[in-house]
């Protein structure tokens, strides 16, 4: 007997797997699907979504941004340092701009000096890590004034009605990014460059300008993620972003963004980060040990990468 409707598993496979996963974890421990757990997990997911979206931009243009983690750490330090001087709001903006500036430099190095993205962003990773450690001397920055801490904390830990503030921001930014990629010239140019850079160049596309913008956006989104995380912790931690780079690349690839460029988008970024965040949370809530948890997440990312390679061959 044939099914009346043919399901495109390449499109709906991951969402289906995601919902099955939600059901399994809920059966194992109903607390997984509680409102409180959903709120805190989506809060974590919102931060990861921003970072994964940034990485998606770089991957779409057939590049990669390895500096995201260290840029996050820099933003954490720059934000708190700036708040000491400028107050919560201006200081936060200054911190985020510091991070975006790193992306701009990445873009310039790649577009105008012809340094491969993997090397340019790797170099930036070391430069930024070094600079922030020299600046802080490795010291964690804390002790904001109560007023500044209250204002900052709202961005990371506050709620608007039943929804965490970072989630609201992530939704707005997500729609904006979706619009940019789908309906603007800049968005289409990213896909074209990612699909075939040589042809795009021959067609007269402003490749250099697009590349600079892509890496600026990537760093800006990582900076926003770092800002919300810093706000939540109310501290500047010089290694804040260390663990996030792997999740950013993993999330983007897991969602279906191709590591070979030109395929993917915001929806894929969202899916990827939801799977990672809920998988991690579900495993904790289900009582799976730390070591097994890391192995499971690693296997899921490898399988997703394998899927990306197989799809490309087919």
């Amino acid at each position: 007997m044939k099914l009346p409707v043919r399901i495109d598993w390449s499109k709906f496979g991951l969402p289906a797997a995601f919902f099955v996963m939600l059901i399994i974890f809920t059966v194992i421990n109903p607390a997984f699907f509680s409102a409180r757990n959903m709120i805190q997990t989506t809060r974590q997911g919102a931060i990861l979504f921003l970072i994964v979206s940034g990485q998606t931009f770089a991957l779409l243009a057939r590049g990669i941004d390895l500096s995201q983690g260290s840029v996050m750490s820099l933003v954490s330090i720059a934000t708190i340092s700036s708040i000491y001087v400028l107050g919560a709001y201006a200081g936060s903006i200054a911190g985020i701009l510091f991070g975006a500036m790193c992306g701009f430099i990445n873009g310039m190095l790649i577009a105008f000096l012809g340094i491969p993205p993997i090397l340019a962003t790797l170099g930036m990773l070391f430069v930024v890590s070094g600079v922030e450690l020299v600046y802080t001397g490795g010291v964690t920055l804390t002790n904001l004034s109560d007023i500044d801490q209250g204002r900052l904390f709202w961005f990371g830990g506050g709620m608007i009605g039943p929804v965490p503030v970072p989630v609201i921001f992530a939704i707005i930014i997500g729609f904006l990014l979706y619009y940019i990629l789908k309906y603007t010239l800049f968005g289409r140019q990213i896909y074209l460059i990612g699909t075939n850079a040589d042809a795009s160049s021959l067609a007269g596309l402003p490749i250099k300008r697009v590349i600079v913008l892509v890496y600026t956006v990537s760093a800006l989104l990582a900076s926003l993620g770092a800002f919300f995380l810093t706000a939540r912790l109310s501290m500047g931690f010089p290694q804040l972003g260390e663990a996030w780079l792997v999740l950013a690349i993993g999330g983007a690839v897991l969602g279906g963004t191709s590591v070979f460029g030109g395929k993917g988008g915001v929806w894929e970024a969202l899916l990827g980060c939801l799977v990672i965040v809920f998988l991690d949370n579900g495993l904790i809530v289900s009582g799976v040990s730390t070591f097994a948890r890391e192995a499971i997440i690693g296997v899921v990312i490898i399988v997703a990468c394998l899927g990306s390679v197989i799809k490309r061959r087919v």
Partner: protein
Amino acid sequence: MKKKTAFLAGVLVICFALVFSLIGNTQVSAKQLEIAVLVPNGVDPYFTAKRYGYETECEKLGVKMLFYDAGGYANVNKQIGQLEDLMQRGIDGIILGATSAKGTVPVVDKIISKRIPLVIDNLDSFTKKPVLRIMKNGVLVGQLRAVYIVEHLKGKGTVLVLPGPSAVSLCQDEHRGFVTYAKHFPGIKVITEWTPSSPDAGMKTVEGILQAHPDLKAVACFSPPLTVGAVRAVQASGARKGDIIVVGQMLDAGMETLMRKGWLQATVMCDHIEMAREAVRMLVKEIKGELKPPLYHQIDHYLITKDTLDRFDRKGSTYPKEWRK
């Protein structure tokens, strides 16, 4: 005449040789000692404070100090590379806080066999060769946390232990100390989550565990970053101050604020700045051949609560605010 001249020339040569060798020897003994300090995770406030201790003691003794940070407990290879580079450099002595107790053994064995003076400072490397050690008593630290928590929970409740990175010997000792004490109280249920020593890891883990165990009554943390992360998760859960007891490790400015505000109930301290100073003194004595046994130096620990916060002697554990600015 010729013989006389030759004799005089010979005497002169010998005199010159003696003078030069004396000058040479004087230069060797006056040469500034150069030592290296290697830590696994320099951004941890514990190591920041210790750096102050190393720096000030080196300054006092006229020793040049090179400081190396592995950048996290996971970077075992990086630390091994740093140690190998230092061996090539011909460093006078090394103070090591190991990223991994087992992973660093081959390189530490090599250092010992090359007779480079070495002091292992708190984070052990499981070498079987004799080496100087200055250590915290990890088991006792774990037990101090357990005693405080068990007493406040009156022997009943679910406790989360965040011992930090699993490859670190001190974390294993602290965990063992906690568990061996808590097991005498059947009403205490211990959950262990090994995590990196970062605030976001601490926060995420406590948030998850709070869902799985809404009856969670206490959290014991290995490091200041984990402690701050755990407190943030407790705050976000809607719990009131003291509903969930958090016991940390060390005390930096951020933790002190949390303790004064009532979110952090206790923290286990040691005079870690004094410990760093002692490590430098031990190493310099070893380099000069002045050190006599014991080869193992252990330091004391104490527990601080909000009530004793303003009364304990901070000399050995707090660096001046103006330092590192």
